[in-house]
């Protein structure tokens, strides 16, 4: 039986973006990590420096070792640690992209309730990503 028979247009639209986004994400995190640990690009803090402090609380480690957090890395992307971190940022943004993608499909289907729910969901995740509701700086 054809898989998509029981999935509506919105689900199929979400699945198509998600399939691509997750495959790209997996490639990016592996490539970013290899660049980082093999030091193919310079990093603000060496891997062994980070390893020497990974027993500290996150707030304490950041006072001791310059590692990327939140969006503070955007001005300096050509660093090994930043590329690896950016691949994780990509993975964390994938769901937001997928949800935003289905909003026009829901509007096209004239599905007011789920258009509103999805827009609200995107807003919650965007606020979290921007650090507005997640204690970012």
């Amino acid at each position: 039986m054809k898989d998509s028979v029981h999935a509506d247009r919105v689900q199929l639209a979400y699945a198509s973006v998600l399939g691509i986004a997750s495959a790209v994400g997996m490639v990016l995190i592996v490539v970013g990590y290899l660049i980082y640990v093999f030091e193919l690009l310079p990093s603000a803090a060496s891997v062994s420096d980070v390893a020497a402090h990974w027993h500290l609380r996150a707030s304490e480690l950041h006072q001791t070792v310059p590692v990327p957090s939140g969006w503070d890395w955007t001005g300096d992307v050509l660093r090994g640690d930043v590329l690896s971190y950016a691949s994780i940022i990509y993975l964390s943004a994938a769901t937001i992209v997928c949800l935003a993608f289905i909003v026009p499909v829901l509007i096209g289907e004239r599905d007011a309730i789920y258009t509103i729910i999805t827009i609200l969901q995107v807003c919650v995740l965007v606020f979290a990503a921007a650090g507005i509701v997640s204690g970012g700086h």
Partner: protein
Amino acid sequence: MAIVANPGTSRFILSSLLTGALLFIPSLVFAAASVPSADSVQLAWWIWMALLFIFTFLLGIIAVIAGVGGGVLFVPIVSSFFPFHLDFVRGAGLLVALSGALSAGAPLLRKGLANLKLALSMALIGSVSSIAGAMVGLAMPEKTVQLLLGLTIIFISFVMYRSKNSAYPDIRTPDALSSALRINGIYYDEQMKKEINWQIHRTPAGLLLFILIGFMAGMFGLGAGFANVPVFNLVLGAPLRVSVATSVFVLSINDTAAAWVYLHKGAVLPLIAVPSIAGMMLGTKIGAKLLTKIHTNLVRRIVIALLAVAGLRALLKGFGI
């Protein structure tokens, strides 16, 4: 002369080898951690990474066979046996669960097993509480988090031990809220070789429980499949397959919300998160292939025991013992 192995015996041997390997890694980690020189830990970062990769790989295999999400095993076990601070283990745990959910999500949606309407209705409220949970969890003293994590994990292992799912709950009358939100569906059940129509009830109770689950997931960095599935299945009355698939989808939204809090608080180190994600993903794929060849009940019992031990360790750490 050909040697014909008894399938039951070979399944038992394979299960025992697998769980033996999983138990071997913590012993190795203990041995490595007991080396007194701090320099040895600094010099051997790549050994930690290799151990983490192998450990999460085995955890991925075991998680699929035992029918639990990798995230719920990752945080208590890795925080017990590896030298990383709990902040980074929780950050990595969320990403492990998130990446697993992202990679499994598309086929489940295409097959109509994961239901977008059911997921979106529950995830909106769950993601807000997940953010709150993450903020509270990262602000709490470490010992308090360890104590609460220990209690939660012991409770989860008890629930896993006692839980009895219902494959096809018979919901005759949907509640008013689920009718208004049009939460129902139809999917093709490959085991029964027929289409299954389903609907849900007790939606307000489900929403309240998803607030609690989201909070716990964010606070402890757990993928909350262990709790999502029983709520979808036993409280709301969705079929088990729909519950498992939709749980994956809810998890991808709730864990995304919490992951951003951890990212902004600096609690995500790619050095720890990436080998964990890679190991777990690879292990999950192998586990899915081994599923029919392994004694699943035995592995499930061992995983429950392992969780209980990890929970107890977290509890003792919380008491400073």
